[in-house]
């Protein structure tokens, strides 16, 4: 039985970020990953670093995270290929634009100013290739994108440098509380710690259920496609309101097309199956929005396994039932940008028992009200 300050289950960006932030506070965590760090959603997502169009309950965490992103090179000694050319929601119709106006007004009312309504002319200045039929948009200027696998690896490596133990290819089982400590077995070893963090993504719900706190979530496989290189034509990341699209050109000219159309996920075998009927819709959307893309070729498509909550919000914070148990999973297709901030918040909750960041809307209490 090896004693640690915390046991983290799950080696995605969230588990690795929490490991790093615990180390920064002088704690010695062990992270247990059943595959390898970044194997699933954290390593193969679209890499969007986005505050734009988030649920109100997530905005404080997203803003907190953005601050960390902007200093990511100093924190991790790796720039993670993070760029911030902004993210723009393109309104395709008058109805889209009306919703955008309401959205920005509502955010302003809550005191958030990171999203700005921009007129059609500014959209076209920022995105010269966009279809002339667009009606306006919303921009979050500090947003951008990073390389997901590189970022997750950078968190893991930095955490290890600062004293975290990362064990890959080991399945955590027999999770239990004994003698006031959490105990977890892996093949050939056991760990105990006063703190247990479930950061297991799509597999997080299984652990929560074992702890007597089942949640309503499903494992999904958001699909992405990448094209061959095309001449540089766009810098910001583009998303839409009425249709599913996330669109970004890399410095090497390839274009990533995502947006959340779902394939089939099998959490037992780690396999995902693509659904070309839905990728067809993504292609159709790009075809309509960016004429310049019509001759591009799709060279690859893939999907990562991701946990999607019934209300599309993660579970972040302490258990409602058990002392020393914390949840950090179910980021519902938009957890990558939140990773740095969520790890910082988690370290505060663990070390201080509180965090200045308002995460009240993400609590496990919404599924299991405290009695």
């Amino acid at each position, binding site marked *: 039985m090896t004693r640690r300050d915390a046991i983290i289950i799950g080696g995605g960006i969230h588990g690795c970020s929490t490991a790093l932030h615990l180390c920064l506070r002088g704690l010695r965590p062990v992270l247990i990953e059943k595959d390898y760090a970044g194997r699933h959603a954290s390593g193969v997502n679209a890499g969007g670093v986005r505050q734009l169009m988030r649920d109100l309950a997530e905005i404080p965490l997203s803003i907190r995270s953005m601050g960390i992103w902007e200093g990511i090179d100093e924190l991790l000694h790796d720039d993670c290929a993070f760029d911030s050319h902004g993210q723009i929601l393109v309104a395709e119709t008058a109805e889209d634009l009306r919703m955008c106006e309401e959205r920005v007004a509502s955010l302003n009312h809550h005191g958030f100013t990171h999203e700005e309504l921009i007129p059609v002319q500014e959209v076209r200045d920022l995105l010269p290739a966009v279809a002339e039929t667009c009606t306006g948009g919303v921009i979050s200027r500090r947003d951008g994108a990073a390389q997901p696998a590189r970022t997750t690896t950078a968190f893991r490596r930095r955490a290890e440098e600062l004293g975290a133990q990362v064990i890959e290819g080991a399945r955590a089982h027999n999770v239990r509380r004994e003698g006031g400590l959490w105990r977890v077995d892996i093949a050939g070893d056991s760990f105990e710690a006063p703190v247990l963090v479930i950061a297991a993504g799509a597999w997080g719900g299984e652990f929560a259920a074992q702890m007597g706190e089942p949640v309503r979530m499903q494992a999904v496989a958001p699909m992405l496609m990448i094209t061959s290189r095309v001449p540089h034509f766009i810098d910001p990341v583009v998303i839409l309101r009425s249709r599913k699209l996330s669109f970004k050109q890399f410095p090497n000219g390839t274009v990533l097309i995502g947006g959340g159309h779902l394939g089939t996920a099998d959490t037992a075998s780690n396999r995902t199956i693509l659904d070309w009927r839905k990728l067809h819709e993504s292609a159709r959307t790009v075809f309509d929005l960016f004429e310049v893309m*019509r*001759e591009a070729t799709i060279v690859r498509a893939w999907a990562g396994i991701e946990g999607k909550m019934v209300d599309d919000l993660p579970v972040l914070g302490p258990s409602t039932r058990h002392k020393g148990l914390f949840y950090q999973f179910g980021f519902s297709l938009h957890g990558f940008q939140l990773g740095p901030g969520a790890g910082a918040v988690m370290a505060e909750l663990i070390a201080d028992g509180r965090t200045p960041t308002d995460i009240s809307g993400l609590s496990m209490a919404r599924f299991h009200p405290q009695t």
Partner: protein
Amino acid sequence: MSRPMHETYDVVVIGAGPAGIAAATTAAGNGARTLLLDENAGPGGQVWRAITSTPVKQPSILGEDYWAGRSEVEALRKSGAEIIHGATVWSLDPSLEIAISIGGGSSFVRAGRVIVATGAQERPFPIPGWTLPGVMTAGAAQTLIKNAGLVPDGRLVIAGQGPLLWLLSAQILRLGGKIDRILDTTPRGNRGTALPRALPFLTSPYLVKGLKMMREVRRNTRIVKNVEMIEALGDGQLASVRYSAGGVAETLPADLLLLHHGVVPNVNLAMAAGVRHEWNEVQLCWTPVLDGNGQSSVEGIYVAGDGAGIGGALAALERGRIAAFAALKALGRNVPAGGEASARSALGRAEKGREFLDLLYKPAPQFRIPQGDTIVCRCEEIRASDVLKAVETGATGPNQAKAYLRTGMGPCQGRLCGLTVTELMAKARGTTPAEIGYYRLRAPVKPVSLNELADLPPDTDAIKAVVRE
């Protein structure tokens, strides 16, 4: 543009080389509704490429093994199989739905059984300078001969090893071409390991033909044996080839360098469909895990021909027939007595001596596992040193290398770097290729244009569901 006549088929065969031709002929000939999809303009695959259209009509030039394909193609045409050429299968999933691109438009069909007969491709041969214009593979040169009767002119160097290298050399000479030098890379030590397996090869149909062909080439060409290093040199264009043999180096001026290190299964479609593969330590490549009928780990998907492990054209024909018989039986159809048994005994004869060839022509490590700034991934221009650096920063396998470096994410989808990356990483991490694994391959297994994807026909099942309401 000819789209498939039906939405569903009993048997869909992918690839019209020897295995695919035999499989489709057998399936259709026994009453199954059969669709044969092939990417080329005509039947034949690589070995019988352009057999119905080649301008090289003099039979002795391409040789009797080539023209043996004619009777197979005739049988196919009489079989009743629906045959579509110029058809690129870009997706096959475990539900046996197949996405096909024909003439710039895509459609889907469903199959009761699928026989994947996607054949072989040349093994990557990553030497310094292999991306220079003027460096090609031997297979590419042979394609030009078969399709168009084109023979290289200028100063020609052919480097590598294996039966195809000798066949190509003989064909070039028969067509009046000239070869300045053949650099034979067969490792000296291979003869010793292969010799104990030589006995079955003595009765192989390939032996006499092979020896005759090598004599024919030797009479007219200077051959350097035991070549242990090759570099293609030139500034933006091949100018010379530097090599060393027995510790002696020489630089030859050259206009064209043809490289060949044998062939390996073309695994992309089968792997993307989820078929389990394992590392073949003798052939140094991935081969699908199959039962005696070619049935793979995915119910209903069979793999036949060189895609199932390199066996040559004669073995491919029989494996195609055997897979088709198994598919017919699985579909509940009657199969004529004797057909399957005769295919199995013919397969036994065709496979004689294969192990000897595999051992004799096992490529040397320095030609499989490059060093320094030699390019590994041509699409993304990733060098051996980049891959090694990724290993140092924690990449444990090709999929992490892919995520860090984009190796294998370009238009070739890993075909030209996959084996190299696997072996390079295995060596760097002190483990085996089997442990290191391979890229997770995905559809589209060939690039498909955004236009075409945007224009996919609507899901007919969905339309029917709506109509029924």
